[in-house]
């Protein structure tokens, strides 16, 4: 019952704003602490015997990849909220998550490319992992373009929700097909990363960084959701203003 109460409370944008404003300072502090600690652990993590110090890029790359996928997952869940329960905050959350997810996907791509250069001798190979992240990035850009072309949230909400769900169903298929495509074509010169079990001295800092990035994502999401709620408030007030004259 308490859960339903929380849900109903959250459904009201005004209460959500109040809650957000209360949570924000704590979340900010927590994010900073975890991030600083994570970076400290990263600084003292040992080098990989194969990749040397470049393994430090992994501490950015892997959490960013994780958030790229989590972002879309979040949008897909929110899409359910929009389509099935018509939860008023679901579309706000989806809309706020799209640019942040796209930004983390971008970070993932750039760090991957900067990692690839010393490892593979080129900034970009059409490696299965990088390529599927690229497709995810294209999907994010499409979502941003969709939001960009229709300002009216009532009109774009359902379209965006459908796109998010179709994307969520499609992403595993894309991943699979890219793997298949890649094994058909890929020249053998590429050194594959991972493979062996990761040593705890690297795994622990990685997990801490993943947690820090996740907190950062949540922080940005809350901030952006707050903006989105205000934007909708501005919209409804402007409608009142236009009608008042």
């Amino acid at each position, binding site marked *: 019952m308490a859960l339903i109460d929380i849900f109903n409370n959250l459904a009201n944008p*005004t209460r959500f704003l109040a809650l957000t404003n209360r949570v924000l300072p704590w979340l900010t502090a927590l994010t900073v602490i975890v991030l600083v600690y994570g970076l400290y652990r990263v600084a003292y993590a040992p080098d990989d015997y194969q990749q040397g*110090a470049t393994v430090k890029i992994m501490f*950015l790359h892997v959490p960013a990849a994780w958030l790229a996928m989590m972002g879309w997952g979040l949008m897909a869940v929110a899409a359910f909220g929009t389509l099935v329960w018509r939860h008023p905050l679901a579309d706000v959350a989806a809309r706020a998550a799209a640019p942040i997810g796209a930004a983390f996907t971008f*970070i993932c791509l750039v*760090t991957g490319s900067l990692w690839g250069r010393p490892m593979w001798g080129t900034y970009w190979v059409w490696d299965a992992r990088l390529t599927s992240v690229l497709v995810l990035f294209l999907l994010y850009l499409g979502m941003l373009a969709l939001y960009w072309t229709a300002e009216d949230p009532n009109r774009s909400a359902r379209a965006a929700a459908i796109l998010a769900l179709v994307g969520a169903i499609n992403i595993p298929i894309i991943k699979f097909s890219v793997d298949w495509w890649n094994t058909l074509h890929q020249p053998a010169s590429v050194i594959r990363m991972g493979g062996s079990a990761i040593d705890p001295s690297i795994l622990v800092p990685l997990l801490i960084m993943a947690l820090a990035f996740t907190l*950062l994502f949540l922080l*940005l999401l809350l901030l952006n959701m707050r*903006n989105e709620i*205000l934007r909708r408030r501005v919209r409804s007030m402007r409608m009142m203003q236009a009608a008042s004259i």
Partner: protein
Amino acid sequence: MTLGPHASFIVAAYIVTVVVVISMIAWILRDYAAQRRILGDLEQRGIKRRSQASRGDET
């Protein structure tokens, strides 16, 4: 901590990440300020939201 022969790539990766995150934060905060400003402006003109106009007051 030594960064080995590929230090520039490692540093570049961290710089890019920091730049992207910072610019995202700046964008969000600027957007927030802008929305607050417009809202304040509208409120100053005595415009109310639909929910306020119909229900009277809201806590």
